[in-house]
């Protein structure tokens, strides 16, 4: 077992990991990139203040990602009810994004994302939390696993890892513009017959 390596095929054990949709039905993660590139954003938990900050950055770019053909899937680890509340809180109804949950943390474990109390309450995390709260994101009760950290995985339509980031702490997350840049590159690559200037 190892963390996903950029440029390498995604491991089958990851693709076969199941997550739950809003109705509680199981979905294999590999199905997300069966028809094209997919950006998987794994949240710490649905109530996480750092994830709320991340969503504020990501939400306005969901249209850009969809525009270049990237499917965006958010994965939390709370209950389906907490998932529904998260969707409502971030006004994601009708947005080009799907929200799933992984209460057993199978996908988090498969991607070897950090699970650490220090990353949640250590000095770095506290500074991150203060930054997010001063930016207007309220602190909410834990809606999932408190010590689990998030991450981001972008897999292209051939199952090749194009971007991977494992969050080090509560407020650490991949730069949204870096994700969009990879998505734009994928769009260019997908048009191999076209003139590229």
């Amino acid at each position, binding site marked *: 077992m190892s963390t996903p390596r950029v440029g390498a095929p995604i491991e089958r054990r990851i693709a076969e990991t199941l997550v739950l949709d809003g109705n509680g039905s199981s979905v294999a993660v590999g199905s997300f990139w069966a028809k094209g590139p997919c950006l998987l954003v794994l949240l710490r938990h649905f109530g996480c203040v750092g994830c709320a900050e991340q969503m504020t950055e990501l939400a*306005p*770019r969901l249209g*850009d990602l969809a*525009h*270049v053909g990237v499917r965006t899937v958010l994965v939390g680890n709370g209950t389906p009810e907490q998932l529904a509340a998260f969707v409502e809180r971030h006004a994601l109804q009708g947005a080009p994004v799907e929200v799933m949950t992984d209460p057993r943390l199978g996908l988090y474990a498969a991607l070897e994302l950090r699970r650490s109390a220090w990353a949640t309450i250590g000095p770095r995390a506290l500074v991150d939390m203060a930054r997010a709260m001063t930016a207007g994101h309220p602190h909410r009760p834990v809606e999932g696993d408190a010590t689990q950290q998030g991450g981001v995985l972008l897999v292209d339509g051939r199952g090749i890892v194009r971007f991977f980031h494992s969050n080090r702490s509560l407020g650490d997350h991949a*730069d*949204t*513009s870096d994700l*969009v*840049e990879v998505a*734009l*590159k994928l*769009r*260019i*690559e997908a*048009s191999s*017959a*076209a*003139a*590229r*200037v």
Partner: protein
Amino acid sequence: MVVFIHVANVLYLFSYLVKDILWLRLLTVVAGSVLLAYYVLLPVPLWAAIGWNVVFLAINVRQIHVLLLERRPVCLTPDELRLHQLAFRSLSQREFAKLLRLAHWENVVADQRFVSKGQPLDRIMVIADGRACVQIAGASGVELRPGCFVGEMSFLTGQTPNADVVATEPTRLVTWPQSELRTFLGRDAELRAIVQMAIGEDLVAKLGYSRAS
């Protein structure tokens, strides 16, 4: 003499009540100056307090200067305004002016090839006026009109172009050196996102056209 302390503190009080950072700094400077006068006029001047107050005043004066520069109205030339409308509507005029500081304007004549297949491209361009055409093996492809980006794919992928770009009429270009633009955008996340959006829209339109043609 004590009146200086009261005046300074009343000014500090007002500075804490205002919400505008410029007014806060202005009031702080006036208050600090009054306090400075008090320290200087004492029978034995308080040099430590005078020193620190001078440092605070200098920092505030510098920041006031920066704030005033940032709040000046933006004056764009008609050409710049047109370019803003054509390709960078999502940027505020002030942000666009920042971007323009890195840009160079250049003219190319009709039939001039300004991007060559296989040749490294170290700049990204926007057509401000005129028209150009993307050519693969001499055959004309996508027509590039005012507002279209040129070199954005090389900018994103780091690869050399696989086609030529030739001006089909006298054309005016605005160009940015890739490395400078990358560094500049790396310092401003918001600006980077908006420029990325503009490039993305142009890219999808072009690639869609290529696929359809």
